[in-house]
């Protein structure tokens, strides 16, 4: 008896669940405003929306005094799984007479990068972050080699 009840229950429950699914898609059919598609090349620069957390490329923010926060510790270089980061540093002598390691060039091979974000996680001083920029296509390979620190930039002094 129970199995007979289950047999018919299965049939009606099946129809009910199918109907729920069909109603969902049917709702989308009659509500074209719900469409999520972005017509990309057409809406470039107008309605194009890219999520905040999208991993586009690694950038190094500089403030208005042309200062960055990279201490050239090269943790990012070590954390990178495919070796797309090269941190070149040099030793300089500060006015107080101390020897100090400062960043010379932060070289970013975007053609090797998988945008995993490990370098951002590894950075202890929040010197780098991921930007939303995604239009990387280029005709020459040179464009894929980027130096992230701007010429003449220096380390931001620690806020006291």
């Amino acid at each position, binding site marked *: 008896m129970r199995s007979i009840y289950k047999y018919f229950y299965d*049939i009606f429950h099946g129809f009910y669940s199918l109907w729920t699914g*069909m109603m969902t898609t*049917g709702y*989308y059919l009659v509500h*074209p405003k*719900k*469409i*999520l598609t972005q017509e990309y090349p057409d809406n470039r620069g107008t309605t194009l929306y890219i999520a905040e957390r999208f991993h586009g490329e690694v950038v190094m923010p500089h403030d208005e005094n042309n200062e960055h926060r990279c201490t050239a510790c090269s943790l990012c270089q070590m954390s990178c799984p495919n070796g797309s980061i090269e941190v070149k540093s040099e030793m300089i002598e500060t006015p107080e007479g101390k020897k100090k390691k400062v960043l010379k060039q932060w070289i970013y091979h975007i053609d090797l990068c998988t945008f995993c974000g490990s370098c951002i996680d590894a950075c202890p001083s929040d010197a780098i972050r991921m930007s939303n920029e995604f239009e990387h296509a280029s005709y020459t390979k040179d464009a894929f080699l980027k130096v992230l620190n701007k010429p003449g930039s220096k380390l931001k002094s620690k806020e006291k």
Partner: protein
Amino acid sequence: MISLSDITQWIHKMLFQYLNGTVAYGAELVLAGVAVIALVVAMAIIMVYAERKFAGFFQMRWGPNRVGKWGTLQAIADTVKLMLKECITPNNADKPMFKLAPIIITVVGFLALAPFAFAKGIVLWDMNIGVFYVTAISSLSVIGILMGGWASNNKYSLLGALRSGAQIVSYELSAGLSIAAIIVMSGSMSLNDIILAQTDGWWILRGHIPAIIAFVISIIASTAEANRSPFDLAEGEQELTGGYHTEYSGIQFALFFLAEYTTMFILAMLNITLFLGGWMPFHIPGLTVFNHIMDFIPGIVWFFGKTFFILFLMIWFRWTFPRMRIDKLLKLEWKYLLPISIVNLLFAAFITLMGWHF
């Protein structure tokens, strides 16, 4: 008012007036063939466009919208592309079979169109076993799929063909039984007679619950026989990379594609002829004025309107439901659809015997 049958009559008269008998007869055959091919190709193009556009809207996308206004020329562009592409035959394929398979499957599709009445008097071959003929012919389409899958000499294709064979052979049963319920009620197998029997109302309304159950089962079985999602295991893009037509390209693939849509079209036409009255306008017995107003809409509009309704349902199914697993698919047929349709057939026979359908 000029009806379509007047036009065909006029063509018939003209041909026999200016040509001698045999030549005129041959010319009529050629004209009918061209008309069928044109209809199928036009329908396929419309259906492909509708399918992709609806698919887009069902899934919160736009669908094709670049070629032509709203992407209307997309299907035509695809057709032209497929025609221009090279037909590649794999090296170790069974070559004659490989080339024959798409032809067989297309011919079967065209053959099954013969007994359908598109409007009053527009029928290619009014045979007295029309329904049976359509089911018999459409059971042949599995041969083309099996041939294509085997001849490709590819294990994915073979698996796809096997699945498709198991599926079509088993779903034919419940499709046949649900069709039989309507045959019992109308007492004829001729599609024309079945349509004429629905002058007072469509079978789905007149046949009480058995007709509704038969309609639902028939729609499910048609979706399965047309190899459409949720029953598209034969293609199974994700697991079988295209199933039985993995190795096909160019015009051969286009023929498989065309055959798929032809099958869908034929099954939709069969369903509306049996359950929704074919070209018969919507009549309610007793309301003479209402019936006359309905009669003003030509039969061909009714016919294609209903066909597109069924096709829309199938498209809706396809873009809503996930694909079934093969064992669940066979379980659905053998444990649910088949017993229900057998019992349903008995009920339909009982209702007919007692004269309870109005």
